């Protein structure tokens, strides 16, 4: 039987250290919705999503109440839209985005991910149409999230898509300029995108997945930080053991919630994503973990080592706690969603270059970073290319979610509100990469991808 201290420990994690289950995401395959008539296609998409996810919110809330743990988000991911739309001559992508938005509102989820294309080797006509539609689709909808996978370690990087996305991000920035270019917060550019990621904005339901699946993202930077307070000043061995034990406990809660949701919704359990995802709340920050480890702030020398260690220990602790681990699984470092990162960036102690270095050892990439609105499209493409190269060469997922804030410059800030927080606008290296980006074509796969 559980004892008094264990109950108090768990409840302290929830009440004082912000332990929560960050998201229950239902992955839904839309492959069987394909139809040559785009109107029929859109209707089938709407019907399938609203049918399968009709009880998602109620079930999530009920489980949260029963276990006494907040389940912050309930979301949906779908098969990359460009693939589902292959049968239509013109899928009317902006209208499809609106259909997805309506379906999300109908079932009550705050985001639906998968307005996506996988173009690492090349773009089909539909992939290109989807990418071209992104500025309109994301500026006229509220809950739709898009992603484009432009590279893999097996295939290399599609630099045509990288160039095109730089332009589309700029257009999207302008179209949502009255809201500090928030549209760009709903678009992620990936290398090695996972098929089973439950976290937005990059979630989609991979083509190798079953018809519907429940993936759960756990969180808990506050719990890790609180645990580390008890080992202040002790050596790295003790530090790592503490992180591992904490990650194990956090993940076990995620596993329990995932199994329960799977049973109640009668949808198979997919994976647990072991990511530490911060929120703008005090005490729910990755940067605070660095400070507890002994760094003055995120960005100080030692930050990359601290992040590498944190990421690795979270995986080691979490792996045993769940039967299936997947998704992004690692620490997230979104600048605008972490008050400690925001403060370090505002003080000029956390730079874009340091963030890029940090992405070599953590799960995601350049995430929720505001840059000046007049940053050239080719520079955005250059930043994307750099980040994709890190992912390709290191056989890991990397992503870019940059927000060129329309009409604003360094020293100003962008306000996104809610979980997306706010971000100081960070300076970008002014040297041009125009001619490099304009070359076009593909960067071939790295030598170590030829394993067969």
């Amino acid at each position: 039987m559980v004892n008094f201290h264990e109950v108090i420990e768990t409840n302290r994690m929830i009440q004082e250290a912000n332990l929560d289950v960050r998201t229950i995401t239902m992955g839904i395959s839309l492959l069987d919705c394909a139809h040559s008539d785009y109107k029929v296609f859109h209707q089938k998409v709407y019907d399938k999503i609203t049918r399968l996810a009709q009880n998602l919110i109620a079930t999530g809330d009920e489980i949260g109440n029963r276990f006494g743990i907040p389940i912050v988000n309930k979301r949906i991911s779908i098969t990359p839209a460009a693939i589902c739309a292959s049968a239509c001559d013109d899928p009317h992508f902006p209208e499809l985005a609106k259909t997805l938005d309506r379906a999300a509102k109908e079932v009550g989820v705050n985001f639906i991910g998968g307005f996506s294309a996988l173009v690492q080797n090349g773009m089909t006509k539909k992939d290109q149409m989807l990418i071209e539609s992104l500025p309109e689709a994301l500026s006229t909808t509220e809950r739709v999230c898009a992603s484009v996978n432009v590279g893999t370690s097996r295939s290399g990087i599609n630099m045509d898509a990288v160039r095109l996305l730089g332009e589309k991000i700029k257009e999207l920035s302008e179209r949502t300029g009255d809201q500090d270019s928030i549209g760009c917060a709903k678009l992620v550019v990936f290398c090695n995108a996972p098929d089973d990621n439950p976290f937005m904005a990059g979630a989609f339901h991979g083509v190798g997945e079953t018809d519907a699946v429940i993936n759960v993202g756990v969180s808990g930077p506050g719990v890790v930080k609180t645990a580390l307070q008890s080992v202040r000043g002790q050596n790295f061995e003790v530090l790592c053991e503490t992180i591992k034990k904490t990650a194990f406990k956090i993940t076990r809660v995620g596993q329990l919630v995932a199994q329960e949701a799977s049973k109640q919704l009668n949808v198979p359990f997919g994976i647990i994503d072991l990511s530490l995802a911060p929120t703008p709340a005090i005490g729910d920050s990755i940067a605070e973990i660095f400070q507890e480890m002994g760094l003055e702030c995120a960005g100080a020398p030692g930050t990359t080592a601290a992040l590498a260690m944190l990421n690795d220990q979270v995986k080691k602790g979490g792996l045993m706690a769940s039967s299936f681990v997947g998704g992004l699984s690692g620490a997230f470092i979104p600048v605008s969603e972490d008050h400690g990162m925001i403060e370090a960036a505002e003080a000029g102690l956390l730079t874009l270059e340091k963030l890029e270095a940090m992405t070599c050892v953590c799960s995601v990439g350049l995430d929720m970073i505001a840059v000046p609105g007049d940053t050239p499209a080719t520079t955005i493409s250059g930043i994307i290319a750099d980040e994709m190269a890190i992912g390709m060469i290191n056989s890991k997922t990397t992503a870019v979610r940059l927000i060129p804030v329309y009409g604003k410059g360094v020293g100003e800030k962008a306000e996104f509100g809610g979980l997306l927080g706010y971000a100081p606008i960070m300076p970008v290296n002014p040297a041009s990469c125009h001619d490099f980006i304009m070359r076009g074509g593909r960067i071939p796969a790295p030598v170590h991808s030829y394993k067969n």
Partner: protein
Amino acid sequence: MKGIITVVGQDKVGIIAEVCTFLSKNNINILDISQSITGGYFHMMMIVDMESSNAVFHQVAAELDKVGEKLGVQIRLQSEDIFQAMHRI
């Protein structure tokens, strides 16, 4: 199904009595009670068996919340599963 009830708040006369009366009315059996008072703060944990109770879990939780409000303490009811999952391999 087993539930864990935790009560936290300023100590006063009748907290246990009030909670136990409520549980008895709802046919919920108490399997174990532990409590401590530190610095005037009352901490109690009960393990209860809800199998024979007619009331639905979330209703019991909501009503316990009201009992807590009346007593000026915080009362939570959670499924035992979350603690088992976290602390037992």
